[in-house]
C-alpha cells in the first residue's frame, strides 16, 4: 500500500544538535539534541502531522527540512522528479532552487508580515527574488493567490496591522503559495488564532491542498487539530519519533505509552465521556540532560529494566497499515515480524 505512493521526502538519521558554549572563548560543553536520529518518509500529496509537546523537536525538525536550521548529521533526500538529492549537501544555488519547492507557514501571524511594509511589497519581494521581472506578471500571480485564500486584491495596499489574525494567517499562506511549492511545512499555523477562525483556516488549507495537490507537513501540539488535518501522524518526544501511524489508527489503537497519555490528557468537549483521565506524572526532561535509555522511561507507567538502559528502535508493528512504534513493550513482536519478513524476502 505504501509502495504505491510516491515518496517526496526521505529523512535518514537526521540530527540537529545545538552546541552549548561557556566562557568568553565559547568552548562547547554540551549539546541540545533537538532532533536526535530521526528517520521518516513523507509521501506526495499527503498531510503528515507531527505532534509533540515542548522540547520534542518538532519545530526544529520542520525548520531543518526547510534548511532554515543546519543539520548536524544524517540526510534529507528530496524527490526531484524521480531523482533523490540530499538537501543537506546543497550549495547556495541549489538551495535557492529548493526554496521554490518547499515553503513554510509560521506560527505567529502577527509577526510574519513586516510591519513597515505594505502587503503588496511583502508579496512582491519573493517573486522578484525568484526572477519574475514583469510587473504585470507579478501582479497577476499575487491576485491569483489572494483569490485562493478569499482575500480581495485591493487589500494589497494595506499594512499588516489593518488585518485580523485569521486574515494575516491567510495572507501568509497565500504568500507561501506564490512560488508554487510542492510541499508546505506548517509550523503551528493555527495556534495563535481563535477557535472559530481556526476552523476557517483549517478548512481553507484542506481545500487548497486538494486544488493544488500539495503535500503538507502539519506541525502542532494540539492533537485534535493534527488528527483533523492529517492522513498520517508522527508523535515525537525529546527529539525522537516514538510512534507513526495512520490518523485513525493512532486514535483507535495508540501503542506507545506516551501517545496514550497524550490522547488521554486532551480534554474532550463531551460531557458524557466518563473515561478516566490518565494524568502523567513529572515533567518533560531537559533536552540537554536526556535520560539514559528510553527518553520517556522516568514518566512511563510500564517502565522495565531494559528501558532505563537501551533506547528502543522505531520498528513496524503492523505491516498492514504501516503502524510503527519505538517501545520495548513491542520489541519482541517487532523482531518476529522482521524475521518473518526476512524469511519471506528471498522467495519474492
Amino acid at each position, binding site marked *: 500500500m505504501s509502495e504505491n505512493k510516491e515518496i517526496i521526502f526521505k529523512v535518514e538519521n537526521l540530527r540537529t544538535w545545538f552546541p552549548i558554549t561557556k566562557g568568553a572563548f565559547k568552548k562547547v560543553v554540551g549539546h541540545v539534541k533537538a532532533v536526535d536520529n530521526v528517520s521518516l518518509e513523507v509521501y506526495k500529496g499527503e498531510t503528515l502531522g507531527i505532534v509533540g509537546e515542548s522540547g520534542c523537536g518538532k519545530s526544529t525538525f520542520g525548520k531543518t527540512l526547510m534548511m532554515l536550521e543546519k543539520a548536524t548529521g544524517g540526510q534529507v533526500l528530496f524527490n526531484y522528479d524521480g531523482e533523490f538529492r540530499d538537501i543537506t549537501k546543497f550549495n547556495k544555488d541549489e538551495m535557492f532552487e529548493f526554496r521554490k519547492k518547499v515553503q513554510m507557514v509560521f506560527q505567529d501571524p502577527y*509577526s510574519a508580515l513586516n510591519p513597515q511594509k505594505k502587503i503588496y511589497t511583502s508579496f512582491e519581494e519573493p517573486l522578484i*527574488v525568484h526572477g519574475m521581472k514583469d510587473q504585470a506578471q507579478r501582479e497577476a500571480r499575487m491576485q491569483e493567490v489572494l483569490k485562493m485564500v478569499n482575500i480581495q486584491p485591493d487589500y494589497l495596499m494595506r499594512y499588516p496591522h489593518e488585518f485580523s489574525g485569521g486574515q494575516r494567517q491567510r495572507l501568509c499562506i497565500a504568500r507561501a503559495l506564490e512560488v508554487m511549492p510542492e510541499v508546505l511545512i506548517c509550523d503551528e499555523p493555527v495556534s495563535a488564532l481563535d477557535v472559530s477562525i481556526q476552523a476557517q483556516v483549517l478548512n481553507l488549507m484542506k481545500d487548497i491542498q486538494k486544488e493544488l495537490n500539495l503535500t503538507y507537513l502539519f506541525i502542532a501540539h494540539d492533537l485534535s487539530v493534527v488528527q483533523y488535518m492529517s492522513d498520517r501522524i508522527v508523535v515525537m518526544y525529546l527529539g525522537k519519533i516514538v510512534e507513526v501511524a495512520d490518523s485513525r489508527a493512532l486514535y483507535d489503537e495508540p501503542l506507545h505509552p506516551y501517545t496514550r497519555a497524550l490522547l488521554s490528557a486532551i480534554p474532550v468537549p463531551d460531557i458524557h465521556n466518563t473515561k478516566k483521565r490518565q494524568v502523567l506524572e513529572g515533567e518533560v526532561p531537559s533536552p540537554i540532560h536526556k535520560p539514559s535509555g528510553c527518553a520517556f522511561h522516568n514518566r512511563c507507567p510500564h517502565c522495565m529494566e531494559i528501558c532505563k538502559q537501551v533506547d528502543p528502535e522505531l520498528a513496524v508493528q503492523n505491516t498492514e497499515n504501516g503502524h510503527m512504534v519505538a517501545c520495548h513493550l513491542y520489541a519482541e513482536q517487532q523482531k518476529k515480524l522482521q524475521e518473518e519478513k526476512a524469511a519471506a524476502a528471498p522467495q519474492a
Partner: protein
Amino acid sequence: MSETKPLSIKEQNKSAASSLLKKNIRKFLRNKLAVFGLVVIVVMTVACIAAMAMGIDYSTPNPTIMKAAPDAAHLFGTDTIGRDLLARVLYGGCYSIFIGVFCAVMSSVIGAVLGAIAGYFGGKADMIIVRISEVFQAFPQLVLVMMLVAILKQRSMGNMLFVFVITGWMTTFRMVRNEFMSLKGETYVKVCEAFGMSKANVMFKQILPNVMTPIIVSTTTNVAYFILQEASLSFIGLGVADSTPTWGNILNAAKSIQVVQNQWWIWVFPGLAISLFVLAINFFGDGLRDVLDAKQQ
C-alpha cells in the same frame, strides 16, 4: 478589479501613497512644538547660509567701535576687537550647523552599518566589532583632539570632524546592534530567509526599515550633541582656528571675567543661538518620531 485596466495596481495606488504622505504631514503639523522646532531650524539655517552667500563682513576688526553694546548699526553689538557680532553669529552658524549635521549623519551611517553586521551575524563578527567599539569608547575625545592638534600642528575643522565621527558612532552602533539582535528572530525575517533572499537584502531591506525610526531620531539629537561638543572644544581653544567663527569660538571670548560681566552681548547671543537651535532640533526629532512609525498609521 484591475485586470481590465491598463494601469497596474501599484500605479493605481500611487494616489493612496501620496494621501498617506499628506496624512503624515498633517499629523506632524498638529504637533506645535515640532513645527516650532522645524521653523526655527529652517529660519536659522537659511539666515546663516544667506549671510555667508551675501559675503557680509565678519572679520574686519574695527578698533573704534570695539566692545560696543547692541545698537541700531550693530544689532548684536561688537566683539573685543570691533567685529560685528551679528555677522559673526550668522557666519558661525553655518559652520556649527554644518559640523553638527555632518558628524551626526556620518556617525549614524557608520554606526548603523556596523551595528547591522554585528547584530545580524552575531558570533565572531559581532565579538570583534564590539571589542573595537569598546576600544574607541575608552578613548577620551579631548585627548584625541589634543593629540591630533599636536601632531598636525594646526587646528582645523577637518581634525575635529574626523575626531567627532571616530568617537561618536558607538551609541548608534549599540542601539542598531540591539535592534538587529532582537529583530533577526522575528518571523518575517525567517520568511524572507525561507524564500532565499540574500543576507544583504534581509539586513538592509527587511530589518533596517524597522530600525529607521530610532536611527533618524538619534541622528537629529546627535546634531545637537555635536554642536555642543564643538562649542565646548572651541571654548577651550581646541576647536577650529580662531579666524573661522563658530558659535563655540565666539564664546571663547567669554573666558575672561571682564567680558562676562561687562560685555554680556558677546556671550549671550552665541549662547542663545546654540540653546535655541539645540532645543529646536530636539522638538523636531520628537515630532518626527511620532510620525515615522508605520505601525501608528
